[in-house]
């Protein structure tokens, strides 16, 4: 089959899958539990969207900003912690276990700690999001730093390169793969933690606050819309990082 023919078939299949997903959503919306719908129908959700689009945009932006700021803080801290851990690990192997333990602590359980420490404010929420990211990034940095000596490194050693030359010619590039995976994992965590933090601690704006508000008043279409919006936000963050990854790794075929 020719390339345009294959493309047409692929588009047709994608549209069919999309229609199937909407049909499945509609079918789930027919399920009643204790007389109430589990989720709103696609039509009701679209109505909710048209009625609340401006405020939904503001709330998505607020959650997005919280995710971005928390992620940035977490990544910066993770780079520092990871670099320190990589240096210390040569003499103290237990460091890796400690970092893994820290990563295993669900970030949202740190929210009460942050609320006690910083009060009910934005800083506590951001600190919780950052906590969710810092360990993954730190472990990624440590893994990258402790990877076996590459052939490239040997070539530089043979040429009698200085340690600084050897580091700058290889390490940032060779670490890119591990760091990008760490960054994407952290970004997914950041979205989840930002929303849950808004749900638990409350916030003037944010998707988590909307979800709780919709649940309290029994607004199923609004709730369905907010859940989807959280999914869209996570998807957009992940997509942005994939584009960034592709852009950064242009040296690969």
């Amino acid at each position, binding site marked *: 089959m020719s390339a345009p023919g294959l493309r047409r078939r692929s588009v047709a299949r994608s549209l069919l899958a999309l229609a199937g997903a909407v049909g499945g959503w509609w079918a789930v919306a027919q399920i009643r539990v204790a007389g109430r719908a589990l989720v709103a129908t696609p039509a009701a959700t679209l109505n909710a969207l048209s009625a609340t689009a401006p405020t939904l945009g503001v709330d998505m932006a607020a959650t997005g900003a919280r995710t971005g700021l928390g992620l940035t803080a977490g990544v910066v801290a993770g780079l520092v912690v990871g670099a320190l851990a990589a240096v210390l690990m040569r003499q103290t192997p237990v460091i890796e276990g400690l970092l893994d333990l820290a990563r295993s602590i669900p970030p949202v359980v740190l929210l009460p700690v942050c609320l006690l420490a910083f009060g009910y404010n934005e800083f506590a929420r951001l600190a919780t999001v950052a906590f969710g990211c810092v360990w993954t990034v730190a472990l990624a940095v440590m893994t990258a730093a402790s990877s076996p000596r*590459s*052939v*490239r490194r*040997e*070539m*530089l*050693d*043979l*040429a*009698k*390169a200085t340690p600084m*030359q050897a580091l700058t*010619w*290889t390490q940032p*590039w060779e670490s890119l793969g591990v760091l990008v995976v760490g960054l994407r994992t952290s970004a997914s965590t950041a979205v989840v933690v930002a929303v849950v933090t808004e749900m638990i601690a409350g916030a003037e704006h944010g998707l988590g606050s909307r979800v709780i508000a919709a649940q309290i008043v029994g607004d199923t279409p609004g709730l369905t819309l907010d859940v989807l919006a959280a999914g869209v936000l996570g998807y957009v963050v992940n997509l942005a990082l994939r584009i960034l990854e592709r852009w950064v790794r*242009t*040296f*690969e*075929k």
Partner: protein
Amino acid sequence: MIVAALDRVRVHGGDRPILCEVSLTLRQGDRVALVGANGAGKSTLVRVLLGLTLLVEGTVQCAAGVGYVPQAYAESLFPWFSVLRNVAMPLLVAGRKDAYDAAHALARRILPGIDPRRRAGHLSGGEKQATALARALASPGALVVADEPFSAISASNRDRLRRALRDELGDRALLLVSHDAEDVAELCERTVHLSAGRIFDGVPV
């Protein structure tokens, strides 16, 4: 002048000896082929000579600034840098002011079909190997070590690259690891056989 020498070198891989009492001397201008069956220890000998593998016993002496084409030539390049910067690497490290000019001239002679501004990661396998060879020849030392340097080069380019290697070597010594009799015959004057970790030196080509 001796540019590299191994004296009664022993290397073990686990409980198996890889090199047993191996001695080898390379002088300025020597063209030596290192041949032997797969697993005979050729690459290990090269790595020992270059100081990349730890010894069990023996002594190694090697001149500075050796040019090296490793068997893993593709992994030895810096895919994030241009072909030119890859070729210039030994000269940049040596602090040569004319590193890029010298590398550019060398690339023109050895890599005529390759744009030196291309990223090394975007090259084909054969182009990568040729780039690794050019980089080895850019090295300022008195010895070039090439481990199967033409394994990915097409037959049409092989002759040209062999000639280029011979011309660019000057009075430097060459240690060539190869399974190809034609490479050995064209480039070397002396063959060293390695078998089960033992060396049989001085076999004329």
